[in-house]
């Protein structure tokens, strides 16, 4: 038993020691990335199906192989050795290069897809053409930039999900949670929409008589704000082709709306917002897998928290205003379309919701005792103002809402600033600089709603185990949402924060077993418990 395996301890301390097989597997990934670059120049050979399968195969074999080599030789447990020493994970040169490259990819994806090979007329070229074979296989259509993006996105979550599971293989919570993320991304965000598009194919429609809109079923308002664009509402409610299609599409629309008002509150009440943010959501999924090496880069300062609260709730207000405006003007223009929902009913729904929330804010002061009066006043003014202006629009003869004839610019600017620039370019492009949850923390309006639910109407909290905290700071450091977990834990207080996505990493990295994610009833005054130290 005293036989000591010295092979583990032969290497030089400071540079990272990569084994030969690790280098080989990384080289495979490198070859795949090189092939992707080459395809941008549009050689005919890159359009062969084998070229694409080679890229995907190399990424998978290289990625999974590298993971295997990295973690399989080490005992199960926390693997944060050297995190702050490596250039790619400590905002060093590699981190910046990676960040700039990712940002550039997002900019071309959103605004210059022609760089990637999208042609408004004629077939795809470049990188997008590489993905035509796969796209045709799934949906029957040639690839778009979004298909390319979706494929990369899904592949990243799958390969790096395997990596995450290996890295945290001592924890069933992380294994199950990551499998859930991988499943929802692959099935709901990637495959099902593609199959639905296949059903929409002309021949398919003729064969089955069904036309189904492209729709990621797990997305809810306000994440799927684009569902309220006129053409999508039409796609979802149009019964032009046949009634079955219209019904199916309409059911999806109803599911989409009811999920945020019914399904989500129930699940969030019982489990906290984590049921969505770190178990189901695609943005969260990418953050948890591809973003995991950067989670410690989130800003933990009080100042960052202050900015976060204004920003994310500001985006939420913007999303509400935009949606109300877009839906209202659509209904206004289709007043005679015979939908069961009319602008009157819509106005009533908006008024009841917003005024109800305002009333709650003031009639249940105990529940909201931690919110400063100023914030309550501002939130109330915004909610009452939106209600008032919607009612004003209903009675106005000119059909203007929020004094706008055409609400499309509102929708366009929201799409530009929030949908593209914030969630994509900053949200993922800045992973290596600001951590993996920039979008989820500062921008996502869905996270804002779930967060408010979690903060005020939920059984979820992170429990602190008595006085065992040694203030080491691992929990705060590895909190991707920038929550200063230690500030609570060292006082013996439970953590009840709107932003907590319940990833469970604070509990995993705690060297003293102090933190546990729990759902349960309240004791005493609040889920937070009193300060003990």
């Amino acid at each position, binding site marked *: *038993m*005293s036989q*000591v*395996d*010295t*092979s*583990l*301890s*032969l*290497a*030089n*301390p*400071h540079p990272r*020691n990569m084994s030969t097989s690790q280098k080989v597997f990384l080289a495979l990934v490198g070859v795949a990335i090189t092939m992707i670059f080459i395809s941008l120049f549009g050689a005919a050979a890159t359009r062969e199906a084998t070229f694409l399968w080679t890229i995907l195969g190399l990424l998978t074999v290289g990625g999974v192989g590298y993971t295997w080599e990295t973690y399989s030789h080490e*005992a199960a*447990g*926390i693997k*944060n*050795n*050297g*995190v*702050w*020493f*490596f250039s790619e994970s400590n905002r060093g040169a590699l981190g910046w290069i990676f960040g700039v490259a990712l940002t550039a990819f997002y900019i071309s994806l959103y605004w210059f897809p022609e760089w990637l090979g999208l042609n408004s007329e004629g077939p795809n070229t470049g990188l997008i053409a590489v993905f035509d074979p796969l796209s045709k296989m799934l949906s029957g259509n040639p690839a778009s930039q979004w298909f390319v993006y979706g494929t990369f996105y899904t592949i990243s979550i799958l390969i790096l999900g395997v990596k995450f599971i290996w890295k945290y293989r*001592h*924890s*069933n*919570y992380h*294994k*199950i949670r990551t499998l859930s993320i991988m499943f929802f991304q692959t099935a709901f965000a990637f495959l099902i929409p593609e199959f639905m598009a296949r059903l929409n194919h002309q021949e398919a429609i003729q064969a089955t008589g069904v036309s189904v809109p492209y729709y990621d079923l797990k997305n809810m308002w306000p994440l799927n704000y684009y569902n309220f664009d006129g053409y999508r509402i039409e796609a979802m409610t149009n019964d032009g082709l046949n009634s079955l299609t219209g019904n199916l599409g309409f059911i999806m629309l109803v599911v989409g709306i009811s999920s945020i008002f019914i399904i989500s509150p129930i699940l969030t009440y019982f489990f906290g917002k984590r049921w969505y943010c770190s178990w189901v959501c695609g943005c969260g999924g990418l953050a948890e897998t591809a973003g995991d090496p950067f989670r410690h880069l989130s800003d933990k*300062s*009080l100042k960052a928290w202050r900015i976060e609260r204004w920003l994310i709730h500001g985006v939420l207000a913007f999303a509400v205003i935009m949606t109300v405006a877009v839906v209202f003007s659509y209904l206004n223009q289709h007043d005679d379309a015979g939908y069961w929902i009319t602008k009157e009913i819509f106005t009533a729904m908006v008024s009841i919701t917003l005024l109800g929330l305002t009333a709650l804010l003031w009639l249940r002061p105990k529940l909201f005792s931690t919110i400063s009066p100023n914030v309550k006043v501002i939130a109330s003014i915004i909610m009452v103002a939106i209600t008032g202006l919607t009612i004003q629009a209903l009675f106005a003869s000119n059909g203007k809402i929020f004094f706008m004839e055409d609400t499309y610019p509102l929708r366009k600017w929201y799409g530009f600033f929030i949908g593209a620039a914030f969630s994509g370019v900053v949200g993922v492009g800045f992973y290596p600089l600001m951590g993996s949850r920039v979008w989820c923390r500062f921008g996502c309006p869905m996270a804002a709603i779930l967060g408010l639910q979690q903060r005020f109407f939920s059984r979820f909290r992170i*429990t602190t*185990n*008595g*006085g*065992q905290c*040694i*203030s*080491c*700071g*691992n929990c*705060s*450091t590895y909190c991707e949402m920038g929550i200063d977990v*230690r500030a609570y834990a060292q006082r013996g207080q439970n953590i009840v924060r709107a932003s907590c996505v319940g990833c*469970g990493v604070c*509990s*995993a*990295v705690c*060297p*003293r*077993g102090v933190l*546990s*994610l*729990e*759902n*349960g*009833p309240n*004791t005493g005054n609040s889920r937070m418990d009193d300060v003990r*130290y």
Partner: protein
Amino acid sequence: MHVVIIGNGIAGVSVARHVRKLDSDCDITMISAETDFHWSRTALMYIYMGHMTFENTQPYEKFFWAKNRIKLIRKYVTQVDPEKRTLTFSDGDALPYDKLVLATGSSPNKFGWPGQDLAGVQGMVSYNDLQSMEEYSRDLKHAVVVGGGLIGIEMAEMFHSRHIPVTFLVREESFWNRVMPPDESAMINREIRNTHGIDLRLGTELKEILPDENGRVRCIITNEGEEIPCQFVGLTAGVHPNIDLAAQAGIETHRGFLVDKYLETSVKDIFAVGDCAQLRHPASGRRPIEAVWYTGKHMGPVLAQTLVNGHTEYVQKTWFNSAKFINLEYQVYGDVASEIRDGERHLYWEHPHDHKSVRIVYNAATGIVTGFNLMGIRYRSDVCIKWIESQASIEEVLQNLGAANFDPEFFRSYERELVRLYNEQNNTDLKLKRKKGLRNAFAVLKS
């Protein structure tokens, strides 16, 4: 009132924070020669291992100190004059005080080993120690750690994390066996050796440390005469209180500053907390110096009461402690000795192949539970302490054991195994009534 605190570790900071909580008017000054701001000494290893930066280990942001009007001074105190109630710093400046709190901490023990002051030989307590460890690590080919305690295992893990071969000398025949029962101690041996491949030498002592031509350690000689070449020796055979200030100030000391039940030293208005304080009258079965993080944290609020509202007694709370031996977590609640004492019974369950175990100590005659020792499994502090303080019986504890489980969700729980083991040993037919969960924990806590 001007409260001056020497030392910005957890004990000193706890005093400062709680004095400010109770009294918004008084002046508070906290002095440290070590660092500008309070940092968590327990996280020292994680800085070296690259898990955290030094800034990450600071529990409070810089604005905290100004906001709470806790004045910070980065100076070294050389003298205390109780007559004039004045401190003198090494630069000659002086500072008056009304109440003085000594929170000076402790330093690594050196037991007169030949070569113990060579370059490359050091303990691991201060920020300075961390920096010099970093310095010596640059050309380090082999390190030796001497002393099988909690700091020793941390230091071994630190080198191991950087793939620096390390030999770990432990005087005892099994790691930490003066504190841990044999089963748990053996489990830690296996964790160190088999799981992580660290060269653990049990029953081995340091005899001497030999220098190279530059006065840096070249090798050590063990008591068995073996020569182990190394460029660094970590001395981690315990710590002793820093009491240099006592002699000239006339403060009575033994190993630490001797304090009464109000944490006051023999000199009026001078108090001591944390690692440097030695209780004149410790609770029965408890040590007079408990050099752990939690002691500093518990003494702070009590002394703050004394300073602001008048004398308040410091009572040693039910003992708990925790550690992590590389990947193996350890928690203890209550009184668990390294052996089964007279009149005591231990219910010990160990996982057949994983490093997990639960030990419940109870009185053979009355069945009253007195302690829990956990390896690789997390238990709920409040529930364990409630059972101990309310003198719950072993059978009550076992039937409700799920309420004590604090492992993350989806982890396998082993309460049934413990109940089964007890039933087998005692011919009983107990059933597990409460499973893991917050609701169950609350039910036990309210009962």
